[in-house]
């Protein structure tokens, strides 16, 4: 941790882990409640050595994120559970009081259900994704809100992809 008032460190850590818990539990709209309705932007980025440039695999604002959650039940998906494990690596103030940048290491495990042979494979767990959360959060005495999240991936093979956000 660096450059952060000690009073904020614990609430920020709780906030970031709460976000992961809501996503793990697929409480999509509860997660949305942690995000700033006006400013929120969610992106999935990575650097591709194949095309030698940074690339974007998802880019949604609050409204688009909300729509995507609403549409989830209407799409055919792999319903395997994703479990996000975090470790908050750094918390840094951007300006005097109001915003902070939080970087967390991210590991996602996939516990299989119906994406392959459910009789044979359901219940097995495999490492799915390694990366980072790069979060911008708004600090307020009343509430903490997520302004932006970049999921920066090391993993660049996501097998059949996912309708669920990371």
């Amino acid at each position: 941790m660096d450059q952060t008032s000690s009073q904020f460190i614990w609430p920020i850590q709780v906030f970031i882990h709460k976000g992961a818990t809501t996503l793990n539990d697929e409480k999509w709209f509860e997660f949305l409640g942690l995000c700033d309705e006006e400013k929120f932007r969610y992106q999935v980025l990575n650097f591709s050595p194949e095309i030698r440039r940074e690339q974007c695999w998802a880019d949604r604002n609050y409204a688009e994120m909300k729509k995507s959650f609403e549409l989830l039940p209407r799409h055919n998906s792999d319903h395997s559970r994703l479990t996000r494990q975090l470790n908050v690596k750094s918390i840094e103030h951007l300006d005097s009081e109001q915003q902070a940048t939080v970087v967390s290491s991210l590991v996602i495990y996939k516990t299989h259900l119906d994406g392959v042979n459910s009789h044979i494979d359901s219940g097995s767990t495999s490492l799915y994704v390694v990366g980072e959360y790069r979060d911008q959060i708004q600090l307020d005495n009343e509430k903490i809100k997520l302004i932006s999240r970049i999921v920066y991936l090391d993993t660049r093979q996501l097998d059949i992809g996912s309708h669920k956000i990371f």
Partner: protein
Amino acid sequence: MNIKIKSLNETSEKTKSYSRNKKQWLKKPDLPDTHIINTDIYTNPAIFDEEVSNIWHKVWLPICHESELPEILDYRTSSIAGNVPIVMVRGNDNKIRTFLNLCSHRNNIVVRSPAGSLKNAEPSGNSNYMTCMYHGWQFDAYGSCVEISREKAGYQDRLCKDKLGLREIKTEVGFGGMIWINMDDECGPLSEFVGNSLDLMKEQLDTEPLEIFLFQKSRVKCNYKLFFDTSREFYHDYLHFHNRQTSMVKPGYFDQEYSQFPNGHSVSGFTTVDYSSHQGSALRTLTFPGLPPNGWRHTTIFPAGAYNIRTSSLRVNVIMPISDRETLIEIRGFGLKRDTPEERALRIKDYVSVWGPFGWNLHEDLLCAQVQTQGIQKGSGAIWNIAAREEGNKVHDEVGVRAYYAEWSRLMRRSHSTENNI
């Protein structure tokens, strides 16, 4: 009493069941051979080996895009079905050449990284050359062997560099700047293979240079043909909520022509898609040259390439079988090279909403191919796939699947609908 009578009636209804016993299930469907596929062609390793020789090493294959190696001495590595490693290099003459990526000495892989520049020196070799790290043999961008470590001391006059160049593979750049290769030295030109199948997209592909903005690869547990089937028929619109909302609701959608071309290619997409009817999609304004707003063009190239333009972005699939039961699917997204940062950002945003790893459609196609593979694996009881929809060559006609397997049979010199292995 009344209840008992009702129960008897229900039993009576059940005797009318149309389920089938084993013999009936195995019976070849009463359809023309052109309309059915024996699932053995998806699961038989011997057939896969024949496919590698008779198809994958005989036809033109799109591999990557010229914008992936934009500078002189840039390179890009890949591989072809049958475990064939290749490297593409842009020479000092600006021409892109492809070589078997094997050292002439002991067949070590010469260039290991997925992409880079030969201008950067390797630990065991000079810059500007491809250097085999094993014994330091070097090759230039023309494939010539330019350095053999202690050549005279070891080989005297028995071997010389002039005869130890890399094996060059036929290469052409075209149809939107894609780099195509053909393993067959005796093949005809790329234009002859593609024919007129990409004419409908010509204005979008060749008016001005394109540039890659997204690369994604998926190693999927499915036979390559099963995933490619999702590009060869549109009847599976029912799989995609997105398609049902953006395409099937559009007046005239089912009247759309689905055309077949020589060498197994197919074309659709003469109409537009209505993204506004899909709640999660924004109204599209940005397009490609000559493409109307919300336009859609779609061409599949035998045996497993696909060009797909929807509104503001182009997707090109390069599918490469790893084995009879595993496939590497490489998917690229393109915009125009001259895009402003704002335009590029919009194209990317549009693209990833439908096709990226988190897009609505691609996940469903990949999921379906993977699950279908479970269904037709050897011993499962699967025997016949049916491709018998006839709708006057319109969009939900399975003519594209039939045309694909007709070309497959022609090149394989075997039927796709024999009962031999039942």
